[in-house]
C-alpha cells in the first residue's frame, strides 16, 4: 500500500476506535448520572420513580421548616400549590433558602413519598426564580404567593 494511504488508514482506524470508546464512555456515564425534574403535583400523582435520582422544585411551604436541635437534619415541604412533597435533608442549606421562597431539591424518593435530598438549591438573588420552579408553578396555575391565576 502507498505509505500515505497506509497512514491515512491508520488514522481513520485510530479515530474510529477512539471515538467509539468515547461514545461508550459517554453512554456509560450518562446512565444513572442524569436526573429528571418533577413538579410536586407529578410526584403526588405517582409519576416520579422511587429510588432513582430526581429533582423536585417549588415553593417552600410557610411554617414547614423543622430543624433538629442536635444535628443538621432538616425537614421541609415543597409545593406547587396543587400538591406538596416532604423533603428530608442533612447539611447546610444555601443562604437564600427560606420559607415562602423557591427551591429545588435533588435526591431520591423513598417508598413513603419523602424526598431524601442530597442537595438543596435556592435561587441566586431575591428577584430570581429557578426556571424549573417557575415552570412548575405555571403548570399548576398559581403565582409564587399561591394566588390562583
Amino acid at each position, binding site marked *: 500500500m502507498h*505509505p*500515505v494511504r497506509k*497512514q491515512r488508514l*491508520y*488514522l481513520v482506524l*485510530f*479515530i474510529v476506535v*477512539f*471515538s467509539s470508546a*468515547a461514545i461508550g*464512555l*459517554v453512554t*456509560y*456515564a*450518562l446512565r*444513572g*448520572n*442524569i*436526573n*429528571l*425534574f418533577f413538579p410536586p403535583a407529578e410526584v403526588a400523582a405517582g409519576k416520579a420513580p422511587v429510588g432513582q*435520582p430526581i*429533582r423536585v422544585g417549588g415553593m417552600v411551604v410557610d411554617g414547614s421548616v423543622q*430543624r433538629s*436541635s*442536635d*444535628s*443538621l437534619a432538616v425537614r421541609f415541604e415543597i409545593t406547587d400549590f396543587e400538591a406538596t412533597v416532604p423533603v428530608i435533608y442533612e*447539611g*447546610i*442549606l444555601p*443562604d*437564600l433558602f427560606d420559607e415562602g421562597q423557591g427551591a429545588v431539591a*435533588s435526591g431520591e424518593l423513598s417508598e413513603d413519598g419523602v424526598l431524601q435530598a442530597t442537595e438543596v438549591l435556592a435561587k*441566586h*438573588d*431575591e428577584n430570581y426564580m*429557578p*426556571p*424549573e420552579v417557575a*415552570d412548575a408553578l405555571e403548570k399548576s396555575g398559581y403565582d409564587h404567593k399561591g394566588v390562583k391565576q
Partner: protein
Amino acid sequence: MIPEIGHFALILGLALALVLTVVPAWGAWQRNVSAMSLAPGLAMGMLAMVFISFVCLCIAFLQDDFSVTVVASNSNSLLPPIYKFSAVWGNHEGSLLLWGLILCLWTAAVALFSSQLPLLVLSRVLSVMGAIAVGFLSFSLLTSNPFARLLPSVPADGNDLNPLLQDPGLIIHPPLLYMGYVGFSVAFAFAIAALLGGRLDASWARWSRPWTNVAWAFLTLGIMLGSWWAYYELGWGGWWFWDPVENASFMPWLAGTALLHSLAVTEKRGLFKSWTVLLAIFAFSLSLLGTFMVRSGVLTSVHAFATDPARGLFILVFLAIVVGGSLTLYALRAPAVSSRVSFSWLSRESLLLLNNVVFLVATLTVLFGTLFPLIMDALGQGKYSVGPPYFNAVFVPLMALMAPFMGIAPISRWKRDSGQRWKAELLVPGIAALACAVTLPLFGEQYNLWVALAVLLAAWVVFGMARDFWFRVSGRSGAGGSLKRLTPSYWGMVLGHLGFAACVVGVVATSQYSIEHDLKMSPGESETLAGYEFRFVEVAPVRGPNFVADEARFEVYREGRNIAKLAPQKRRYLAGGSVMTEAAIDPGLFRDLYIAMGEPIGEQGAWAVRLHYKPMVRWMWLGAIFMGLGGFITVMDKRYRSQPRRAAVPAKGAQYAR
C-alpha cells in the same frame, strides 16, 4: 448628559464597524490599496468610540446616576467605589459593552502589531473582526442598551449589586475571561482571511499563532480566577462544579488547547492545515455558543443575569450566521488548501495529532453533557440535569489517556522517530516517575492508589521534559546547546506542561484527600479534623461598609500550637437584605483550612458550621497560572517579530506551500 454621549459614541462605533466590515473587504476583493489601507485607521476609530462609550457608563456608575436603568438595578450609593466600578460588568448590558470593548481592543491590537502582515491579509482579517464587532455592538444597542434611562421616575437609591459579585475576584475575572473568549476571534479572523485568500501556509500559522497563544493564556487565567472565586466565595468549598456556565468557558479552552498544538504542526511542518482552520472556527464558535448560553437565560446560574427571549434569539441568529457562514466557506475553500506532506507513525506529528483528538473528544463530550438538558427541554422530553459524575467519568479518563504521550512528546522528533530511541531516552525518567509514584503518596494521610496514579502521570510528564531540557542544555541534541539557545516558545511549552502536571496532582490529591465536615457547633466547643483542632471561640456582630454580619471566631491548633485565627462571616447586605456566607481560609501550598458558617441552630447560640481540610487545592490554580504564563511567554519569540513585511511571504512558508 454623559449617558447620552456614551450612547451616541456606541452608535458611532457601530457605524465605524460597518465601514470596517465593508470597505477593506471590498478593497481586498478589488485589489484597491487605498480602500485596504483604511482598515487600521477604522479599527482604531472603532476602539476610540467604544472606549468613550464604556468610560461614560463607568462615570454613570461612579456618580450614582440612578436615572440610568442599569445603574439603578445594579448599584447602590453605599457600595464601595471599587465595586461600583466592577458593577459596570456585573450585569448583562454592561458586560456586553465590555465584551464589545475587548473585541475592539483585539482588533486595534491586530492593526497595531502586524507590520509583517501583507496588506491584503491584514485588511481581510480586520474586516472579519469588524463584522464580528457589528454583530456584538448591534446586539448591545438593539436588545440591551446599557444607557437606557428610567425617566421620569428616578429612584432615590439603587437596588445594589448581587453580593456574590462584590468581591475582588470579580473585578478581574470577567475582563480576563472575555480577553480569552474574544481573543479567539482573532484566530477565527485569520482562518477566515486565509480561506478567503486561498493561501494557507506556514507563514499564516506563524501570524496566527501568537494571537491564539495570548487569547488562550487569558482564557486560562480567567477560568482559573473563576474557579478560585467559586471556592472562597460560594461558601461550600468546591472549585469546579461542571456548571453549564463553567462549561461554556471550558469548551473554548479545550478547543483552543487543541488549536495551539495543531498550529504548532502547521507552522513547523505545514501539515494539518485544513484541520487547524476548522479548529479555529470551532473554538470561536464555542465562545459564541458560550455567550448564547450565558446571555440568553436558558441556564440557571449566577452568570445568567436576565431572561429575555429577544436576546437569546439575536445571539442564536448571529451564531447561526457565523458558524453556518464560516463552515460554508470552509466547505468551498478548504480542499484548495490541503497539504501533501507525509509523516511516520512514530513522530511528533502523531503525538500532537493524538493531543488534538483527545482534546476534541473532550470538548465534544462536555458539549454533549452541557447541551443535553437544553435539547431534551426543547424537545419537550422533560427537564433533565447532567451532574458532575457524568463529566468526571468521561473527562478524567481522557486526560489520563493523554498524559503518557505527553511525556514522550517533548523529546520526540518531527517527521520520523523510533521507538527504540524513545525507550533509550525515557527509561530513566520512567523509573524516576515510578519511584515518585510509589514514595510520594506515603506523605499523605493514607496510601491512595488514585493519587499514586496521578503522581505517576505528572512525574512522567515532568521527567520526560527534564530529560529533554538536559538534552538541549548539555548540547547533545547536536545543535550545540546552552541555556541561551532555548527559545521563548520552548520555555512556554515547558511552563505549560509543568502547569498541567501541577493541575493533575492538585485535582486528584484534593479530591481524594479532602475531609469535609458539616456539623453543629456552639461557642466553646472544638472539633478535630486531620490533626487540626478547630476551637470555636465566640460569635460577634460586626459591621462593614454596606452590610452587617455575624462573625464566628475560630482558633486552629496543631499539636497544641495555635497556627491560625479564622473568622468566617454570615453577612446581611443592607440594600437588598440578601444573606451571604463569607468563608475564612487559612491557605497553604500543601493544605487549605476552610471554615464557612451555615445557619444558627436552636436557642443556645449554636451554629451549623462547615469545616474543610483541603490538601494541595492550590496546586491546580498555580498550575493554571503556569499555563497562562507559558502562553504569554511564547509571544516573545523572535520569529514572531523580526520578519519584515516582504521577507515573511517567501521565507519559511514557501517550501511547504502547494
